């Protein structure tokens, strides 16, 4: 490629600036991976259906979705194990279409870890460095550095099958990080660990990412995991990215019904937009006794069908009838799920709709609180519901 075309190529493309992420103190650089209108078909099956996505330098991005949503295929296209049927993947501004996995500046951590069973821990970590022809002394110090990072110094001479699941996971991480890749791709890195270890490792991953400054792209199906670790989350469904946002924005302002329901638990009410004003809207929901009053404007047209999403922790339970004509409904407590820090009350409305309300367990005894079969009113504030039109 000549200099002139390179300059032209750069000036042709719009300059992309990293998004503002609420609560994120990291300084993100320019896009490091650019996915442009990528489609991937396996026979008749469309695994990835026209995805465009920018991964910015230094960020921790989670691809979140259920099984078969295309998240792993997308990751494998970044690594070079799959070729897009349409569209292209750029890394550092360079088209990766004809670049084999072994020539890409990214490394991957596999779901199965894919540790070489016939090599010791240190040989596994050293493997990528050997391929680059790194001198022995440098290699040894890098391996030592990696072993220290994942606290496996004592296990350097062991074979993978002589390690526990958690230790193997750390070897896989160290091996993938040893070459200091531009981007680390992680395919369900924590799915094989038990819950306690998984929670601890989530924080370890975040720390390592911050310390090394390497861009992380993590595929996961676990919404809590994505929320804990990621700067940004991309929710995928049927080969599409439904929404890409910081976890907090994703949770509080979902764009679609799918996102609201996938990202955390939610009460969803279908209704008709009966009053559409710039400062408020009113939704008539047949499942509720009173209409939903939302204290801000929404996109949608009057008379159209919309959905109001209401998070369980934004629903309150009271025993006296509210003295207003919106945002409440009466019902009977059907079930109480005690979760330690909180309890979730399941209230059945007259329409048969079940509403979940999560209340913090401030007091040790449950004296005076509503209990099974109590008649209660569910209510919420004007700003609690999120209205989505699809």
């Amino acid at each position: 490629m000549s200099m002139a075309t390179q300059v032209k190529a750069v000036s042709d493309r719009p300059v992309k600036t990293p998004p503002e992420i609420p609560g994120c103190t990291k300084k993100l650089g320019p896009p490091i991976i650019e996915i442009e209108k990528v489609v991937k078909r396996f026979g008749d099956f469309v695994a990835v259906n026209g995805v465009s996505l920018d991964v910015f330098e230094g960020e921790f991005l989670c691809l979140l979705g259920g099984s078969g949503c295309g998240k792993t295929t997308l990751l494998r296209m970044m690594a070079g194990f799959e070729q897009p049927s349409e569209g292209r993947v750029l890394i550092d501004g360079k088209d990766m279409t004809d670049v084999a996995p072994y020539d890409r500046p990214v490394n991957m951590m596999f779901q199965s870890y894919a540790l070489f069973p016939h090599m010791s821990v240190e040989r596994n970590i050293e493997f990528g460095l050997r391929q680059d022809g790194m001198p022995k002394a440098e290699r040894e110090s890098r391996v030592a550095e990696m072993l220290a990072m994942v606290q496996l110094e004592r296990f350097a001479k062991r074979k993978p099958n002589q390690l526990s699941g958690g230790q193997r996971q750390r070897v896989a991480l160290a091996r993938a990080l040893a070459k200091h890749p531009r981007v680390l791709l992680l395919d369900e890195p924590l799915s094989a660990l038990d819950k306690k270890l998984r929670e601890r490792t989530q924080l370890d991953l975040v720390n390592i990412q911050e310390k090394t400054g390497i861009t992380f792209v993590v595929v996961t199906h676990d919404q809590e995991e994505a929320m804990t670790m990621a700067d940004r989350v991309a929710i995928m469904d049927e080969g599409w990215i439904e929404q890409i946002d910081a976890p907090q924005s994703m949770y509080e302002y979902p764009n679609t019904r799918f996102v609201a329901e996938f990202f955390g638990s939610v009460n969803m009410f279908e209704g008709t937009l009966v009053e559409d004003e710039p400062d408020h809207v009113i939704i008539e929901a047949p499942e509720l006794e009173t209409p939903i009053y939302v204290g801000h404007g929404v996109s949608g047209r009057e008379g159209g069908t919309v959905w109001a999403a209401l998070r369980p922790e934004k629903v309150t339970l009271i025993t006296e009838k509210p003295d207003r004509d919106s945002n409440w409904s009466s019902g009977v407590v059907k079930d109480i799920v005690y979760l330690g820090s909180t309890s979730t009350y399941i209230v059945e409305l007259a329409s048969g709709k079940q509403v979940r309300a999560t209340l913090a367990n401030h007091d040790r005894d449950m004296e005076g609180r509503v209990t099974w079969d109590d008649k209660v009113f569910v209510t919420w504030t004007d700003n609690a519901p999120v209205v989505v039109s699809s």
Partner: protein
Amino acid sequence: MEAGTGASAGGGAAPVRTHWRTRLSVYLNTNGRRLVLGVPYLWLLLFFLLPFAIVLKISFAEFAIGVPPYSDLLELTQDGYFRLTLALSNYAYLFDDPQYVIAYTNSLRIAAVSTAFALLVGFPMAYGIAKAPKGPRTILLFLVVLPFWTSFLIRVYAWIGILKSNGLLNNLLISLGIIDDPLVILGSDWGVYIGIVYSYLPFMVLPLYATLEKLDPSLLEAAHDLGCRPWKAFLTITLPLALPGIVAGSMLVFIPAVGEFVIPELLGGADTFMIGRVLWNEFFLNRDWPVASAVAMAMLILLVAPIMIFQHIQAKQADGEGAGR
């Protein structure tokens, strides 16, 4: 426990009040495992160890005219003693006559070269089958085993028609203009190599397939991901992990090839003098059973070495997979 031993000792006639069916089930529960393991051991005892002992015995006897054509090891002397005569002359004879040493080295060389060729042909085959999609894979595996449905003798015989100087292969090569004069394959070592590779290829392919099929494809992906080019990934990942299959397949070809009789007899020449022919000559032409037995025993000892290597590698493999050092 009590009931189990009672039943095993007394059988059906034991004076126990419980019903025989109850006792049988108790017996099977406590000893079933040993019973299942016992069957192959019994098989080995009857069809390997016993014939082995007989051959060993004959190898220490002396040639005699009569039926059977060898002397007894144990003799009852006139003063009522048993006399044991072990003749080592048969073994000494193997070193005396150079034809035996030549036959052994020939056998080992031809078996080794054939095994190497079988590995070279079998590895790509096994690799291709292991990487093939599920449907074709079954068919390919079936095709590998299919030749077994025809008599071994007929298949080797058919090669004569292919390899002889005016056979299929030479005619084809001459008509294509690749050669002018027919190649002498039949009656040379090359005929034997071709015959052994052809006949024993399934024994090479199947164990190789079994190990390659188990190979996790993500290991190769990981190697590529870490900057390893395909050919190097094959050498550093695939080959070491396929080693148990390579060893097993090579043993399965090498060991029977050493003692092969039919293939060198039909496809080899007069100078392809292998141990199988020597055995045949000693047994059926010279009718010298003791020397023939000594030849067989010496071959067994020759083969024990590779088997031991095989066992050693297997044990090492198992050690690596176990808890560890």
